[in-house]
């Protein structure tokens, strides 16, 4: 089947909204990494009285859908309160673009992660709100909801691909069930390692395909 971008994705890729840097931003966060093929940085200017996002900008190292999702989530976030913006989901962002090919859905996750990270930094640093940073099966499960299985474009928890999560003094073991000749096995394992690896308190991540 032909994998195509929607007209709206192409529009946002060609002329991305809110691209650039905010000097003296109230919060800024980078998600992804060049090694993984995509990285996004989100900058926020927030009215501290109302907690409303007055300006938002982003930069992107990545493909067309990475740029387009950065454009759409910054559009969605602008003018919203930080709580409202934090509730924006990657599905919503993808829908706003008229859909994304399943294999590109992770770009939407990355863009939303970038926005959320920036908001959480603001809440923590400016508002003194602490997030639950404990390392347990629940928080790891939540993190794994951000790992998508590329051919389907849905997360591996929803798809019931994760069979076991174990934690032993910061060493995390994740067992997944993917066919051993599945061409998406390696990229999925890489994603799990990347997501779980950046959680605070994690010393090592071991993924086993069972």
């Amino acid at each position: 089947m032909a994998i195509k971008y929607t007209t709206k994705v192409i529009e946002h890729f060609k002329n991305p909204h809110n691209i650039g840097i905010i000097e003296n931003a109230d919060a800024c966060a980078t998600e992804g990494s060049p090694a993984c093929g995509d990285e996004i940085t989100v900058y926020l200017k927030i009215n501290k009285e109302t907690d409303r996002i007055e300006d938002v900008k982003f930069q992107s190292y990545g493909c067309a859908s990475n740029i387009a999702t950065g454009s759409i989530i910054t559009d969605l976030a602008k003018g919203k309160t930080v709580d409202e913006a934090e509730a924006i989901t990657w599905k919503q962002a993808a829908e706003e673009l008229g859909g994304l090919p399943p294999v590109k859905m992770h770009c939407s996750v990355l863009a939303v992660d970038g926005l959320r990270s920036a908001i959480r930094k603001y809440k923590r640093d400016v508002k003194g709100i602490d997030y639950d940073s404990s390392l347990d099966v629940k928080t790891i499960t939540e993190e794994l909801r951000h790992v998508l299985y590329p051919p389907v474009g849905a997360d591996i928890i929803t798809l019931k691909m994760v069979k076991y999560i174990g934690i032993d003094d910061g060493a995390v073991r994740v067992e997944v069930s993917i066919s051993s000749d599945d061409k998406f096995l390696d990229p999925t394992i890489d994603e799990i390692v990347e997501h779980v690896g950046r959680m605070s308190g994690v010393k090592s991540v071991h993924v086993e395909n069972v």
Partner: protein
Amino acid sequence: MIYLDNYRSAVIAREAWEAMRVVALEQYAVPAPFTQCGTGSAELVENAQKRLASFIGAEQNEVVFTASGTEAINIAIQGAVKARRLDQPEIVTSEIEYPATLAVCKALEKEGVKTRIIGVDGDGFYKLDQLESAINEHTAVVSLMGVNHMIGTVEPIAEAGRIVDESSKRLGRKIPFHVDYASALQSVRLSVDDARVDLASFSSNKIHGPKGVGALYVRRGTRVTPLSFGSESYSPLVPGTPNTMGIAGFDKAVDLLSATFEMDVTHMRALRDRLAVGIRDRIPYILLNGPDGDGRAAPHLCYSFLFIEGEAVMMFLDMEGIVVDTGSACAAATLKPNYILMAIGRNHEQAHGSIRFTLSRYTTEAEIDMTLDKLVPIVERLRAQSTIRPPVPQGG
């Protein structure tokens, strides 16, 4: 459209298309004895065999036509392995082969056939000392390539052929040497005797013939077990009704190729160099993937543009009507960076930023200049948007 993705598939030559039209509408009989129309079709296949054979220094009946380059590779490697019922058979190949070769090896691994992989250097040249040590009494076939499709490396095939030949003498039996020549035929002359090649695969659509046709050279005396079976044909390796329309198109493409070979190579090299110089002069922070100079196939150029990602470059060029390819993971259906770029020592980020330009005899100077004019602002714009910044020069 400015088409610079000719290593994926090239436009069919008008003359080849015309040859196919004639066969489709007028000369459509199945090759057969005695009748005018049957023998006419049989001669069409024979003449096509003769022409390709003569272009590579072979005999007519050493060439068969397949459904693709991929099918030729399958018959060559699988057929050679199956023809010799060796105990614990092994295939010797490299880590940068065309996906078809690697897929055949992977499939045969499930049947107990081991693959021995030889490495490459930073320009993608085979490490031939590894070839020598990889060949042993279990080796059923050696499979290498003439030109690497991703990085344009012209591989030392004759040198490899000499090593295979000497190893065969050392072991006291002929080890067949297969060369995937699909990406090489349009720019590097092949003499199967000089290179001591026993099996060679070719693809029609890479040389301006139609898709759906390939060819396999099988040196007389080389044992290859057929993989498919059917009604009698001119060769047991390719049973059933021959694709005479496709063969006629391929034959015309070989005819055109041999008629203007040197001129075409000179033309493509000059334009490729024009593109390379333009990129080097106008775009900083780039890496050439594959060798510079004579070690590189004339139509081929592949650069990594640092700090940006290749799919975005490819998409912007596409919107300008310019077709290129990228080794970025983002453009791959599997989300993996190109394995050949990784094999020559590129890191993920460098592989993601790669753009491959492959020219043809039909590429014009105006198209190259237009490509440069469009490419430069695309790279500048994506760099301005990127999260990664070029390093600040030291000392102002």
